[in-house]
């Protein structure tokens, strides 16, 4: 495997596939299939494989593969990262093509046939905008960041970066501060010691890095390592991370999902590194692989086209072949087979490979497609985990969840306060998959967990409480459905006293729905009534509900005293109270309530009578029947 960037056709070597070996290989891989955490994408870009008549080129900037047949005379097929960007054309064969590229948007084609000249078939002219005079050993260009890296000095280890800015009509090129790569051995006499192959540029977690593959040397480091130099737009480039490979040999680098992937050819395995994962046992910023080395998931080339015989199985593809070319950030090309793959990280296998669940969560939370895997980790730790682990997992989740909620909150605040001068419009925070909210947890983890057979209810409740503890710790408002789940679980197992204590310490926060839920429990657990009323009282917005509860309990005087104490007496419906008083069958009670409302009417309207809108006629009749006309307060008694 080479990491050649020379502008030359990709490997055209045809190797007789070694069937026997492949077969064994495949068997082995299948045994531990669950452990392959890297895979080639399912829909590779397919092109005509490199051969004596077909030259293949790859343009990193546009991610396009050029298949040039017979120097272009019998056709050039250009395939981009998606099917739509495929282009085919012919051009005259004017000698061997050394390099061929499109400009952005496929507007201009450039062909290089000799060492020092580039042909633009449309006969356009180029203009020199700026020039720099430096002795250069080799160069690299990173299309994502538009940074050009030049190798200078005799040893080649002083790198001079340039930043390009392309705008419509013009562009700028600025010199960034140069930096020196530490070589393992300083050769004497001085000679070119830093190879282009050992340098790659990448963007990791939004930051630009120069990765240096530092081979082992007999004198100091026994194994190879990847050294990361952080290259800021402004300021000095610094050595920031060292990735320990713990082996020697030929390596190639990819960046996938902000992970540094190191392929090791002789062992046919790959390692992944997460520069944000702190290693407690290592010196600062020295990283060990996140997971044990594993090979990329076996890949079989599908047999396409009309020639396909149904019984014929797809051919296994040789991984880590020496004809592979690896490009940044995540591209692997097999020119001899005519495929361009994107490398992908498969998260599910990592769950079993990484025993430290806290570290696993840290790792998963930074991955793109993490949600379902995270939820499955949560379910698993609920199943067989131990509470401290469960707690760690919850805390890590809620940390991310809280950060998102806060970002969302300040965004909303910024939007509401309107655009302020001098500051850019607020940017809505991106909700990544790592944001696992309460309803995710409820639906995928907690609710199924409470229904699982064979788990002690003690443990179920402990897990639920642990989640609530974690939410509280991060000052996240707990949503009602979680409380409901807790209550349901406690009630189901008859743990009423436990529930009572939780409510007593306000662990289940007050809300009207919760109070109503408690009311519904009264028949099975009498104290729920008191708990509910207390809660309604604390809410201070539920006075009507309190009145309803008291009236339903035939505590008419209590209801009346309550509504008076909160100053709502003037606005309550007299009919409701009279209905309730009459229902008790207690005539004196009815008398008291009736008279009390007559007095209210007198005070409010100067007359003791009820308004027609109050619909109290039947109660007036009833009162007269019981106590006679003379018992009514008369208007004249003002």
């Amino acid at each position, binding site marked *: 495997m080479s990491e050649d960037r020379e502008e030359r056709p990709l490997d055209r070597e045809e190797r007789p596939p070694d069937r026997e070996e492949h077969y064994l290989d495949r068997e082995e891989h299948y045994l531990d299939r669950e452990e392959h955490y890297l895979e080639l994408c399912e829909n590779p870009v397919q092109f005509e494989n490199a051969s004596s008549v077909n030259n293949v080129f790859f343009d990193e900037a546009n991610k396009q593969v050029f298949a040039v047949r017979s120097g272009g005379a019998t056709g050039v097929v250009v395939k981009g990262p998606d099917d739509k960007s495929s282009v085919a054309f012919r051009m005259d064969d004017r000698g061997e093509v050394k390099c061929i590229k499109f400009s952005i948007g496929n507007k201009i084609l450039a062909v290089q046939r000799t060492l020092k000249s580039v042909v633009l078939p449309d006969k356009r002219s180029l203009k020199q905008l700026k020039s720099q005079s430096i002795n250069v050993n080799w160069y690299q260009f990173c299309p994502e960041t538009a940074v050009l890296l030049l190798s200078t000095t005799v040893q080649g280890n002083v790198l001079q970066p340039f930043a390009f800015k392309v705008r419509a009509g013009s562009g700028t090129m600025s010199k960034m501060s140069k930096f020196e790569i530490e070589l393992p051995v300083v050769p004497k006499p001085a000679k070119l010691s830093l190879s282009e192959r050992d340098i790659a540029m990448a963007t990791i977690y939004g930051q630009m890095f120069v990765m240096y593959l530092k081979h082992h040397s007999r004198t100091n480091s026994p194994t190879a390592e990847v050294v990361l130099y952080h290259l800021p737009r402004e300021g000095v480039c610094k050595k920031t991370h060292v990735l320990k490979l713990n082996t020697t040999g030929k390596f190639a680098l990819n960046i996938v999902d902000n992970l540094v992937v190191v392929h090791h050819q002789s062992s046919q395995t790959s390692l992944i590194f997460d520069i944000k994962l702190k290693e407690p046992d290592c010196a600062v910023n020295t990283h060990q692989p996140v997971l044990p080395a594993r090979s990329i998931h076996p890949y079989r080339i599908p047999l396409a086209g009309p020639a396909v015989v149904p019984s014929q199985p797809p051919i296994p593809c040789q991984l880590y072949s020496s004809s592979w070319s690896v490009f940044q950030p995540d591209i692997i090309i097999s020119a001899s087979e005519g495929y361009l793959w994107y490398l992908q990280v498969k998260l599910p296998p990592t769950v079993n490979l990484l025993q430290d669940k806290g570290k696993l969560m840290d790792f998963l939370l930074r991955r793109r497609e993490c949600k379902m895997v995270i939820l499955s980790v949560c379910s698993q730790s609920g199943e067989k985990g*131990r*509470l*401290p682990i469960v*707690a760690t997992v919850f805390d890590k989740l809620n940390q991310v969840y809280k950060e998102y909620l806060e970002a969302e909150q300040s965004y909303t605040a910024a939007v509401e306060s309107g655009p302020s001068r001098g500051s850019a419009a607020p940017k809505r925070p991106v909700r990544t998959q790592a944001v696992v909210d309460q309803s995710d947890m409820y639906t995928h983890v907690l609710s199924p967990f409470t229904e699982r057979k064979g788990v002690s209810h*003690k*443990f179920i409740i*402990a897990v639920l*409480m*642990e989640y*609530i*503890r974690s939410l*509280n*710790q991060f000052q996240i408002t707990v949503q009602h459905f979680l409380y409901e789940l807790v209550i349901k679980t406690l009630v189901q197992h008859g743990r009423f*006293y*436990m529930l*009572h*204590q939780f409510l*007593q*310490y*306000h*662990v289940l926060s007050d809300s009207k729905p919760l109070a109503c839920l408690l009311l519904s429990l009264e028949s099975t657990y*009498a*104290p729920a009534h*008191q*708990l509910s*009323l*207390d809660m*309604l*009282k*604390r809410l201070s917005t539920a006075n009507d509900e*309190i009145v309803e509860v008291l009236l339903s309990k035939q505590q008419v005087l*209590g209801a009346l*005293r*309550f509504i008076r*104490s909160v100053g709502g007496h003037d606005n309550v419906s007299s009919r409701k109270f009279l209905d309730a008083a009459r229902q008790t069958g207690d005539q004196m009670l009815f008398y008291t309530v009736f008279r009390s409302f007559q007095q209210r009417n007198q005070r409010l309207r100067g007359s003791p009578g009820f308004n027609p809108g109050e619909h109290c006629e039947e109660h007036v009749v009833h009162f007269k029947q019981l106590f006679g006309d003379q018992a009514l307060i008369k208007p004249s008694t003002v």
Partner: protein
Amino acid sequence: VLTAARMASGMQEKQYTPSLLNFFVYNPTFGQKEGEEEKKILFYHPSDVEKNEKIRNVGLCEAIVQFTRTFCPTKPAKSLHTQKNRQFFFEPEDNFWIVMVVRNPMIEKPNKDGKPPTVEYQEEEIIDTVYGAVVKQCYSMYKLFNGTFGRQMEAGGVELLIQKLEKFFYRYLQTLHLQSCDLLDVFGGISFFPLDKMTYLKIQSFVNRVEESLSLIKYTAFLYNDQLIWSGLEQDDMRILYKYLTTSLFPRHSEPELAGRDSPLRPEVAGNLLHYGRFLTGPTNLKDPEAKFRFPKIFVSTEDGYEELHLIVYKAMSAAACFMISASVELTRDFCEQLDGLVGPQLTLLASDICEQFTVNRRISGPEKEPQFKFIYFNHMNLAEKSTIHMRKTASVCLTSVHPDLMKILGDINCDFARVDEDEEIIVKAMTDYWVVGKKSDQRELYVILNQKNANLIEVNEEVKRLCATQFNNIFFLD
């Protein structure tokens, strides 16, 4: 017991507080044959009473109970008032009776001319509900450590029961302080430690983790400052265990602490963690090669009867955790060391967390919010009890800061409340110019003592409303 001597009209009077005369347990179905009456008696205090007198006293109680049964078969007599004493009858299990005889408080007035002093019994000073509750408590405490009478009968017949009763009550009765029994004994409540949600959740988490790591533990209770924070036991069991912890076990251990005799900070060799954890039951020193790993056993109710448990009480600073483990398991040095190593550091940390939280809250609420009222609050629903009348309990006495006369009024109001279901409010002006207010709202009772000589009824009512608004604003308490 001589507790107070006061000068009255030039003569020295001696006042005697109520005291325990007799305490016995009998079963009328035993020894029914003529001449075998003694067999009915399972326990008798004082033990040096002559046999025939014991038989006579038991017989009398039996007769009274039988006689009163004719009037109300389901509710026989609960107490008998006489001039000199008062007897309390309680049948905790079928045919097993506990009787407590309390001598009424009395005043001894010396007479001139060398005549014997005149004794004046204060028959009305004793409240039935208070001492009735004390008898029930005696039984509950016995049951906590021994299980039911019936269980002992099954296990070892009447001989075993007699032995157990003797062993338990011999010591327990010495700790009964009848002179300081009051309304709080009627409630038999639990004082809860006020705590913010987050710290409470941390304690939850701690309890759950310990129970998970040491899976032998079936139940856990957590207390701070002798106040309950968490109980894994059901309410009724916790109620009596709480009583035992706060009136017996903790006071016994707090005294050496207060005296500064043992400073139990122990450097842990292995993890090099300092912690203050120690066992209040079981081994006093784990390092002692002779240490015994025996813990008191308690009985708690289950869905179908009772279960016997080891009671491990482990304390770090003011935080105490009670761990209960099935008695069928033998507890070993290994287990205790494991528990010590796991719980000690965590509990020490939690204790300091709680302490910090507590001081912060104190500072926020401020001293001006401290009630100028003396009150007792009780909630029948969760047994929560709060008193600003009672001082800290010690092993020997429970001190109150108000005059016994006022306590008596509180007891009387409570009796009134017990008679009806309705919410009520009673305001009493005491002889000593104090106002005493009792309020009952749903399952809650509140008793307030106000020292406002010149206040009128309306002002007192307003004052109590104010108290409710500040002290009880987070509960539904009808005005």
